[in-house]
Structures are given as structure tokens and as C-alpha cells.
């Protein structure tokens, strides 16, 4: 059993199998890349209308759905993007410059190696897939990297490397689509490799997610492993503690600052051994801390309880606040030692 899509190809509606659809989409995308922009749109449009003819013949023959084999055969008839690109440059109106020809003849026939791209590996992940992705990118072992990271994190008093991980998690995109997964592995993204990866997935008997979407409708929570959830629960507890601590601090420092500003009484400040400037900056700092605590708890809740509505924006907020908090802490600790205050 397969899912099917409805595709509008040059004005005609076709039912098309999911894997066939993916292959067709990759094929058309690659044709776009092969032929460039201005002319390309027209050429691909023409090719699409030919594809419609080929498929229409198929459906007229009684087939009710376009399957993977039909698309593969169509690509065989039309030619792969690599072949077409070569043909296009050979018969182009501008002859290639002589040097280029010389280089090609003299140089060793070295096949161009597709570039690996760094993605978060959603198939090999404990938390967000950062190390799975890094390991795939560098060709190392993910488990060893993770262990090393844990050791280093403990050695550096947690915060710097935890922040680094969260930053990496934000910045590095997840390998969600088939194209991205192929790029991550350093396999060329072309019709052959996509076709092959479609086959591999179907051979896995549904172990792989069929449409290659991990971060899909199931939401954010699915993107985390079990360990990720435990870590997030801890984050939530830390967030709660931060909220409690900061609330108390906000009340105390707020009261002191308000007392000084409104009544002109410096008694509270004096008992705390502070002047108004330092007290105000501490107040700002704990306010940030309060926000940080709230966003941490919220973030943890979205993951642990699968609540909806959180996403990248919240993560960004939490991390920005965390950095402010850390920065503020450093500034305050320097100011606190300064005899001027």
C-alpha cells in the first residue's frame, strides 16, 4: 500500500505514488538547476508538457496511477539532467574556450566529488542530532564524540559547552528532506541517487519515514530522543528554580530601588551594602533571569509534554536571554569587586 498525491502537470491532473512524486520533483528541480534561470523556466515548462503527454498516454492505456517505474522510464526517455546539461553545453552557440578543452583532455579524468553539507542527523540522534550530523560530516564516530563532549562539558563547568551545543542546534539545519539527507552523506543529489534512496527506504519496509519528513505534523517533540527529554526535564526544573530565585530577588531589589527612588530612603540599600547604580543593574539582571527561567520552563514543557506552539523563536529567546544573563553575571561580578561602587 502506498500513499498517492495528486499532481497538476502542465494543466492535467495525475494521481501519482509518493515515491514516484519525489523522484519527479527532484528531476524537475535538477532540470531547473541545469538550465539556469531565464531560459530554464521555459525549457523545463516545455519538458513538463512532454512529461504530461507521456503520462497521459499511460493513463489512457488504463493505468489509474503513475508509479515509480513510469517516472524512471520517462527519465530514461528524456535523459538525466547530467546528460542534458552536457548536451546543452556541447551544442551551445558559444564554443568553449581552448584552454578549457586542453585542461579537460590533459587532466586526469577525475569525477567531481559531491560536497558534503553539515546537517543535523535526524536518524542518528540522542538529543537534537548535532553530533550525529557532525559525525556524518567528519566521518567520525558519533558515540565517541558524544562521550568526549560530556567529559569536556563537565570539565568546563557546563555552561559554555551547553550553550555551544544549543547554538549549534539552532544554527545547523536538520536534514529533513531526502535531498538534505543525501547532501549530508555527501552523496550526489541526482535522479539516480534519489531513486536509489527511495528504493532503500521501501526496502526497509516502512522503518524509514516514507516522505522523509521527521520534523513534521507530529511536532517538535518527535525531534528529541529519550535522553533529550530527560535533559529537557532537567532544564525545566532548573528553569523553575531560576524563576523562584529571581522572583525573590526582583522583590527585594525592586523594593530597595523603589524605596530609594520614591521615598528617598537608602536604608534597604545600606543594609545590603549597595549603592543605587549597582542595585538597579542587579534588578535588570534578575529581571532577565526571570524571563530566562520562564522561557526555559516553557521550552521544556513543549518537549516533555508535547505542548504545541513553541519553536525556534522560543529557543532563540531562551538562548539570547541566557547569554544576557551570563554576560550580566560577568559584568556584575567585575563591578562588584570595583571599589568605586
Amino acid at each position, binding site marked *: 500500500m502506498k500513499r498517492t498525491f495528486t499532481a497538476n502537470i502542465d494543466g492535467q491532473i495525475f494521481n501519482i505514488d509518493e515515491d514516484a512524486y519525489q523522484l519527479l520533483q527532484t528531476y524537475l528541480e535538477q532540470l531547473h538547476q541545469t538550465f539556469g534561470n531565464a531560459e530554464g523556466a521555459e525549457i523545463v515548462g*516545455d519538458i513538463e508538457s512532454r512529461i504530461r503527454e507521456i503520462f497521459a498516454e499511460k493513463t489512457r492505456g488504463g493505468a489509474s496511477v503513475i508509479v515509480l517505474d513510469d517516472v524512471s522510464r520517462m527519465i530514461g526517455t528524456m535523459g538525466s539532467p547530467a546528460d542534458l546539461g552536457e548536451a546543452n553545453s556541447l551544442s551551445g552557440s558559444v564554443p568553449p574556450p581552448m584552454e578549457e578543452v586542453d585542461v579537460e583532455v590533459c587532466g586526469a579524468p577525475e569525477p567531481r566529488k559531491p560536497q558534503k553539507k553539515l546537517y543535523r542527523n535526524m536518524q542518528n540522534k540522542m538529543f537534537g542530532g548535532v553530533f550525529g550530523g557532525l559525525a556524518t560530516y567528519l566521518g567520525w564516530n558519533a558515540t565517541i564524540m558524544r562521550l568526549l563532549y560530556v567529559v569536556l562539558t563537565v570539565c568546563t563547568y557546563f555552561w559554555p559547552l551547553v550553550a555551544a551545543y544549543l547554538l549549534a542546534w539552532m544554527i545547523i539545519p536538520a536534514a529533513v528532506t531526502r535531498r538534505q539527507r543525501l547532501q549530508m552523506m555527501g552523496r550526489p543529489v541526482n535522479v539516480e541517487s534519489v531513486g536509489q534512496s527511495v528504493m532503500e527506504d521501501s526496502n526497509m519496509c516502512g522503518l524509514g519515514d516514507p516522505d522523509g519528513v521527521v520534523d513534521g505534523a507530529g511536532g517538535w517533540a518527535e525531534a528529541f530522543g529519550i535522553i533529550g527529554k530527560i535533559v529537557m526535564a532537567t532544564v525545566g526544573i532548573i528553569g523553575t528554580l531560576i524563576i523562584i530565585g529571581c522572583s525573590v530577588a526582583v522583590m527585594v531589589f525592586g523594593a530597595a530601588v523603589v524605596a530609594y527612588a520614591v521615598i528617598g530612603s537608602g536604608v534597604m540599600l545600606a543594609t545590603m551594602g549597595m549603592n543605587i547604580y549597582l542595585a538597579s543593574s542587579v534588578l535588570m539582571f534578575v529581571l532577565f533571569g526571570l524571563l530566562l527561567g520562564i522561557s526555559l520552563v516553557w521550552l521544556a514543557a513543549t518537549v516533555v509534554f508535547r505542548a504545541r506552539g513553541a519553536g525556534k523563536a522560543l529557543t532563540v529567546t531562551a538562548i539570547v536571554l541566557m547569554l544576557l544573563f551570563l554576560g550580566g553575571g560577568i559584568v556584575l561580578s567585575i563591578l562588584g569587586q570595583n571599589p568605586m561602587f
Partner: protein
Amino acid sequence: MNIENMKSQMRKGMLEFCVLLQLAKGDAYASEIITKMKEAHLIVMEGTLYPLLTRLKNDGLLCYRWEESPSGPPRKYYSLTQSGREFLFHLESSWHELEKSVNHLLQSHDNQNTEIQ
């Protein structure tokens, strides 16, 4: 030098000429041209034709119009422009020259071969 590569280059060089020849006989849409070119064993991959048609059109040798088709959406019918006809005329004469020179060499080559045998 790869023989297949050489062969396909020779064929590609001829392809534009042959497409123009075909269109000189009458207007046609892409699939018709493809069928003819395939009959003549001039193309293997259908996709090669589309960039070629677009290029010829952008160079002003071809123009196209949309025409209703009995089945499916309208088709793009290509036809030769005036400059396309002139271009084809030049190509034809140069083809005849080329044919003559190649045949000349080919004949002496063939004679040599029969002598050896």
C-alpha cells in the same frame, strides 16, 4: 578520445540543422519533431531537443504560436522565421560542400581499404 563521445558530438552538430530542415517542411510541435528525429536516429534522449528549440527561438530563427489540440492543453507550434529560412539556406549549401569534401576523402579511403584487402 572516446568513440561514443565523438559520435554523439557529430550527431549533435547536425541536430539543429535537421530540426530546421524538418520545420521547413511545415510547422510542428515539439513531440512531432521528436518523433521525426527519433525515426532518423538523430536523438536518443528527448530532453536534448527542448533547450535546442528554445535557443533557436531566442536567436530569432524560430517562432511559435499556441494552437488548440484535440486532446489536452494547447500545443506550442514552432515555425521558421524569415531569418531562419536564410540561415537554413546557408547551412544547406555548407552541408553540401562538407558532404562533397568528406565524400571525396571517404572515397579515397575506401579505395585504399579495398586495395589492402
